[in-house]
């Protein structure tokens, strides 16, 4: 793991801890804030992976978790056993299936920031639609929030947790 990767990874880890803190907090009523922490953790671990390159993308580049999934699907053969171990699967084909299963939630989380969702769609920060708001994140029942409670969502959270916690073990595979 190079120095830049380490900085992005530390921030991802802090964001994921914030998500877990808010999610487990009794009486916390605002999924928008919990989801914001989850989205930030996802984005930053993806960016950490891209910081392996000599020519790293700009900070504003849109690099969400779905791009990390694509990267993980193309790690070189020699690194596949390591990656499967970090993500607790038996062999790479199963890992590919895991990537496929977590992708839908990864995509939905990736689309939640207002900069991606745009001014007139469900997002984590601002009332919408922009010209005549009818909804606000603090009072919105996010579909993806409910899905985190079912098997699909739990698998996604396990995946993200392993992606973040295990990053120092596999960060070098993106070189």
């Amino acid at each position: 793991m190079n120095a830049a990767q380490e900085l992005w990874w530390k921030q991802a880890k802090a964001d994921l801890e914030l998500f877990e803190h808010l999610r487990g907090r009794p009486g916390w009523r605002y999924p928008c804030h919990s989801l914001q922490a989850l989205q930030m953790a996802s984005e930053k671990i993806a960016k950490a992976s891209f910081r392996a390159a000599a020519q790293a993308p700009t900070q504003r580049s849109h690099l969400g978790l779905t791009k990390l999934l694509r990267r993980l699907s193309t790690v070189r053969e020699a690194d596949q056993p390591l990656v499967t171990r970090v993500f607790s699967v038996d062999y790479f084909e199963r890992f590919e299936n895991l990537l496929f299963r977590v992708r839908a939630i990864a995509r939905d989380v990736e689309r939640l920031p207002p900069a991606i969702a745009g001014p007139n769609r469900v997002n984590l920060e601002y009332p919408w639609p922009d010209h005549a708001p009818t909804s606000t994140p603090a009072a919105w029942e996010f579909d993806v929030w409910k899905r985190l409670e079912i098997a699909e969502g739990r698998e996604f959270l396990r995946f993200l947790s392993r992606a973040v916690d295990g990053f120092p073990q596999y960060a070098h595979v993106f070189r």
Partner: protein
Amino acid sequence: MSTVAFDRDSMATWYATQHLKVDEGIAEVVYLPTNAGEREIRFLEINADMLDADDSLEPVSYGVDMGTGMEHELLVIDVTPAQYERIRGNTLPLPGTWTLASAVVFDRDSRRRER
């Protein structure tokens, strides 16, 4: 660093196949070999899941095997289907020397075709 033979077209086929396999939002991968360096693979990925995107088409570098004999660079630009139509209609320019000339399209049915 010793270099070894690098089969760019085979690698491009593998990357396209994997990206289409794990990301069902990608409708097609367009491989653009013309003007690319010997160890550079350029892709446009037509991403139906992308919401409205601005028109700053910035390639993202997936550097691979850096510092080894197999070193190469995969450069990917995600575009919406509407942006791709504009690129094809020459109303949205590709960056630098990127061009659709001799493009090869990989679709979800694992078909490969010349554009």
